[in-house]
C-alpha cells in the first residue's frame, strides 16, 4: 500500500511539482474565495440565530427538533469549514482581522491558541510520526501496531466511544498532554498556561450553552439545555467521525523519527500523501466536513483555502498515479468501518491476530525496506 519507493531525485521532482501546484492556486486567490467564506459565515450565523430562536419555541416538538438541527449545523460549520480552516491561516491573505488565524475563536470549548499549537504545529509538521504526532491515538488510544500493547488498551473501543461523545472536551484536554504528564516528561506546573486558557474558554462556552440560553428561555430551561447539549453532541460525533477517517483508516502509513530526520521538502510531501486518507461524497458533504474529506490535499497544503481542495484533487491524484503512490480514498462507511476495525483489533495484543498485523510503513526512498512490525 505504501507504493513505489522513490529515489531522492524523484522526491525532489515530486516536491517541485507540488510546490508549483500550490503556487498556481496562491496566484489565483481572490474575491471568489472571500465570497465563498463569507457565504459560509453568513449561513452559519443565520443557522445559529435560527437554532437558538427555535429553541425558545421548544414546547412544540417540531420546533425543538428544527432548532437542534440548525444549531448542530451551525456548530459543525463554525468548527469545521470556518474555524479549523481560518485557524490554519487559509484566509490570512485576505488580511481580514475577523477571519484571521491569529484572532479567530471557534464555538467549542477548546481554546484556539492551545489547539493551534498542537494541531498546526505538532500534528501538521510531524504528521503520523510515531512519538511525535500526538494525534496518533490522541494519547489514549491504540490505533497503530507500533504503539506497544498494554492491558490498558483492552478498553480501546470504550475510550474511543467516550472520546466521540465528549469530543470537544477531549480536544480541549488534549493540550494538557496527559500521557507526557504520566510518563514524567512534563510537569503539571508547565501546563499552567494552557490550563488558564481552558478554564476561561470552557467556562464561557458552558455558561452560554448550559446556563444563559436555558435561563433566558424561562420555563423551557430544561428543553433548551437539552437542545444545546444535543447540538454539541451532534457536532462531537460528526467531527470525531470525520477526523478519525483522516488518518486512521487502514492503508495509511506511519513513520519513525529516524525515517524523517532531516527530510527534504519532497519527502515531507511524500509523508503527508501516505499519511492521510480522503472520504468521497457530495458537495454538501464536503462543506460539512470543512473539506477535511480532502485530508490528503489538506495535509499537502494546509494553508490553502479548503474550498480549493476538491478543485485540485484531480491534479493531486494524477501526480500520485505518475509517481506510483497510493491515493487513499473511499466512502464514509468504508473508511469509518476500517477505523472501527482497527480500534477493535489493536485493543488486543498482536499475537491474538497471529503476529504481524499488516501495518503500513511509510517507506521512504532511502533504500531501506519496510520495517517488520
Amino acid at each position, binding site marked *: 500500500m505504501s507504493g513505489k519507493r522513490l529515489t531522492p531525485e524523484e522526491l525532489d521532482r515530486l516536491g517541485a511539482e507540488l*510546490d508549483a501546484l*500550490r*503556487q498556481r492556486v*496562491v496566484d489565483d*486567490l*481572490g*474575491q*471568489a*474565495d*472571500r*465570497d465563498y467564506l463569507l457565504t459560509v459565515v*453568513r449561513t452559519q*450565523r*443565520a443557522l445559529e*440565530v435560527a437554532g437558538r430562536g427555535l429553541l425558545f419555541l421548544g414546547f412544540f416538538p417540531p420546533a425543538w427538533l428544527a432548532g437542534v438541527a440548525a444549531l448542530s449545523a451551525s456548530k459543525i460549520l463554525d468548527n469545521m469549514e470556518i474555524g479549523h480552516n481560518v485557524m*490554519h*491561516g487559509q484566509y*490570512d*491573505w*485576505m*488580511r*481580514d482581522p*475577523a477571519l*484571521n*488565524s*491569529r484572532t479567530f*475563536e*471557534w*464555538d467549542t470549548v477548546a481554546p484556539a491558541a492551545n489547539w*493551534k*499549537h498542537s494541531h*498546526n*504545529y*505538532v500534528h*501538521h*509538521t510531524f504528521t503520523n510520526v510515531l512519538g511525535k504526532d500526538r494525534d496518533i491515538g490522541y494519547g489514549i488510544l491504540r490505533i497503530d501496531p507500533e504503539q506497544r500493547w498494554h492491558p490498558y488498551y483492552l478498553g480501546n473501543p470504550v475510550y474511543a466511544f467516550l472520546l466521540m461523545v465528549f469530543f470537544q472536551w477531549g480536544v480541549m484536554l488534549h493540550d494538557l498532554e496527559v500521557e507526557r504528564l504520566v510518563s514524567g516528561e512534563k510537569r503539571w506546573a508547565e501546563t499552567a498556561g494552557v490550563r488558564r486558557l481552558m478554564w476561561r*474558554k470552557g467556562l*464561557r*462556552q458552558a*455558561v*452560554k450553552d448550559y446556563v*444563559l*440560553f436555558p435561563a*433566558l428561555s424561562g420555563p423551557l430551561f430544561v428543553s433548551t439545555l437539552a437542545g444545546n447539549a444535543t447540538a454539541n453532541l451532534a457536532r462531537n460525533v460528526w467531527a470525531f467521525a470525520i477526523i478519525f477517517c483522516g488518518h486512521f483508516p487502514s492503508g495509511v502509513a506511519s513513520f519513525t523519527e529516524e525515517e524523517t530526520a532531516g527530510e527534504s*521538502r519532497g519527502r*515531507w510531501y511524500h509523508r503527508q500523501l501516505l499519511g492521510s486518507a480522503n472520504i468521497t461524497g457530495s458537495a454538501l458533504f464536503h462543506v460539512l466536513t470543512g473539506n477535511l474529506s480532502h485530508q490528503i490535499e489538506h495535509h499537502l497544503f*494546509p*494553508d490553502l483555502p479548503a474550498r480549493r481542495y476538491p478543485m485540485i484533487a484531480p491534479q493531486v491524484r494524477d501526480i500520485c498515479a505518475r509517481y506510483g503512490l497510493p491515493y487513499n480514498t473511499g466512502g464514509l462507511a468504508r473508511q469509518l468501518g476500517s477505523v472501527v476495525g482497527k480500534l477493535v483489533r489493536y485493543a488486543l495484543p498482536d499475537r491474538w491476530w497471529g503476529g504481524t498485523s499488516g501495518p503500513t510503513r511509510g517507506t521512504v526512498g532511502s533504500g531501506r525496506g519496510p520495517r517488520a512490525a
Partner: protein
Amino acid sequence: MLATPHGIDRYLELIHPMLAIREQRGIVTGVHRTTPDTITLRIRPSRAWRGFTAGQHVRVSVTVDGVRRTRCYSPASSQHARGFELTVKASGLVSSWLRENARPGLVLDLSPAEGDFTLPATRPDKLLLISGGSGITPVMSMLRTLTDEGHTGEVVFLHYATDEAHVPCLDTLRATGHRLVLAHTAAGSGHFTEAHLRAAAPWFAEATTYLCGPPGLMAGVTAVFDQLGIADRLRTEDFRPSTPADPGAVGRITFSRSGRTCDNTGRSLLEQAESAGLRPEHGCRMGICLSCTRRKTAGTVRDLRSGELNDEDDTEVQLCVSVPVGTVSIDL
C-alpha cells in the same frame, strides 16, 4: 456573553456593516469627481467614530479582489462639520479602485484619526499653507476649519497643480474667502522657488507654515526654510514612505517591541531575530504552522516560497519564510 466567542459585531454587521458597535466604519454618502484624476467621498462615520483634528489622517481599509488593503487618507473637510470628506488621487491600487468603484453605500473600515500635523490650540495670527497635488487635503482641512471658526488672522493658501482643472474642490476653496494663490506648474509659474514664497506671503518668516505635497515640492520648500534658518517655523506631512526599498541584504532590522536592531544579513527574519538574541515563538520553521506570524510595521519582505514582495505597512508576515529586503521593522 451570549455572542461568545465571536462578539456581537460579527452578528450585527451581517444585518448592516454600519451597525457594528465597537468597530469604526464609514459609509460613503456622496461622491464627486471634481478633477480628471481624483474622487471626493463624503463619509458618514459609525457610532464609534471619535472625530478628527484638521491635518490628521485616517487609515482606510477596503477589500480589493478579496484582499483587505489599508491606506492613509487625510480628511479634507472642516473638523467641525458632521462626518468628513476624503479626496483621493488615483495613482495606484487602492486609489484607482476607489476612483472606479466608490459609490454611495460603500462601507469603509476606519482607524481612529491619528497624526500630529495639526494646528496649535491657540490659532496663529499668520498662517501659510503650502501644498501640491493630492497633498492639498490636510491643509484644506485646516483652512476650512479656520473658516468655520471665524478665524480673523492672515491665512495664505499656496497650492501647486498642473492647471486649474486639477485642483480638487476649487469652489470650496474660493468660498473660504482666504487668500488663495494657485501656481500652475504646466503654465507660467513652474515649480516652487523662493520668489513664489515672497510674492504669496511676504511675512512668511514670522508665520507658521504647513507643507504637504510631492517630494520635489517638499524638498524645495524645506531647503529654503533651512537656508533662512527658520526651519522651526515649518511643519510638514509626508504622504509617501520615506525609505524607498533598497534591494537585497542591506539596511537594518528593527524589532520594535524589544527595542533591538541588527544589520540585515539577508537570512529569514526568524533566524535574524534569533541571532539578535530574541526567542520568537515558532513551530515548523517551514511556513505551515503560522506560530511565527508577526506584524511588519514598515519595510519590504520577500516570501521565500513564492518570491513575492510585500511592501505594505502593517501587514502580518511569517518570520520563518520572510526575508527582509532592505530596512524592515517588525513588532517583536
